[in-house]
């Protein structure tokens, strides 16, 4: 019985993180008056939803060794623990500056950077044959997100 994580665990967490992100941006958009800021927050929410879909796709391509685990879990609690692990990443619960579009984008970039740090840590916990190198694909995606957001900031 292995206590180690596999790529499927990490993709599952990545999906959950994007879901959390989308939900955060949507909630923030509801409470804001400025039209342009609200549009931006909703666009970020849509991007997070898009990321969740692409992680789902990548996850479906994993092979047997990268997704099966012989960990004894008769009550199927793994998902609860995975969600708890993700939800304790507090960067989405931080009060972010939403007074200007620039502040919102900068906060979004910080969030993406925090998530990369998280994935780098998780990568250490996944052995080679359980899909360690797949985690790189997740990190690459997040770096692409940072690039897009930085380009937006530059245009302001």
């Amino acid at each position, binding site marked *: *019985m292995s*206590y180690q*994580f596999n790529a499927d665990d990490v993709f599952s967490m990545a999906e959950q993180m994007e879901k959390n992100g989308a939900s955060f941006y949507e909630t923030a958009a509801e409470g804001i008056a400025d039209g342009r800021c609200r549009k931006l927050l909703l666009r970020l929410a849509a991007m997070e939803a898009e990321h969740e879909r692409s992680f789902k796709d990548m996850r479906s391509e994993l092979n047997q060794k990268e997704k099966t685990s*012989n960990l004894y879990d008769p009550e199927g609690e793994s998902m*609860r623990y995975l969600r*708890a*692990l993700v939800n304790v990443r507090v960067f989405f619960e931080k009060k972010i500056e939403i007074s200007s579009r620039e502040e919102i984008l900068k906060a979004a970039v910080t969030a993406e950077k925090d998530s990369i740090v998280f994935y780098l840590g998780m990568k*250490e916990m996944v052995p080679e044959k359980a899909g360690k190198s797949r985690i790189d694909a997740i990190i690459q995606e997040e770096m692409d997100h940072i690039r897009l957001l930085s380009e937006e900031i530059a245009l302001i």
Partner: protein
Amino acid sequence: MLNPYEKYPVTIRSVTNETEDKNLKTFELTFLSSEDAGAFTFLPGQFAMLWVPGFGEIPLGIASSPTETNKLLFSVNKIGKVTRRLHQLDPGAILGVRGPFGNGFPWETLKGKHIAIIGGGYAFTTLRASIVYLLDEANRNDFGDLWVLYGAKTAGMLMYRNEIDAWAARDDLEMHISVDRQDTPAWRHHVGLIPTIVTAHLPPADEDAAVILCGPPVMIKFTLQALHEKGYGADQVYLSLENRMKCGIGFCGRCSVGKDCVCKDGPVFSSAEVNLMPNDF
């Protein structure tokens, strides 16, 4: 040649329901012979084979501490043939005990260290033994700070209620109690899964820290990750493995994992040692 299959006859002194679903009971046993009682010296983390005559023997972590004289405790979950029969027995029934077996927690190595004890669900038996052992005035000063986290699904599933409440009131240890789900309105302690509580409240690691971790496999997996994030090395964390056993002394081959037998080379292994084991336990 001594016969390690010989049983010390014992009788049940008392039976206590530990959990609200009544599936977990603590049996207090007394040796019928004081000579046997004297011979049975053990350290927390070791186990014994408890024999229910006519039904079989099962390995059980010893829940009492060697510092508790004339007290032998086992907390037993009703799950199979032998335990079902055991749960039917009343005080006065005769059983047999073989042991102590196994390596126990590495008390010599732990001396002088700050110890975090983390347990979940039914896996708190040898941890109770360890806490009572550490809090005993003969031992307390040999060890550093003591931080304990015990979690269960709901308040009704926590074992040793009176004792854990008493420990929470002491100032020579930091006691955290948590439930996965709050179902009693007057709950004063944490609500959350154990890894979450570890992330939020466990002091970060230093080279003088060690962790003893026992619980269901899923909890262990995620708690190991949380400990890793706190900086605890795999050689600073101790686990107690479980496997199906029959002889308990390394002869019948049933509990083997790789070159080790859980009964004679364990049941306590460091997380580093477990990482080197083949993936079939």
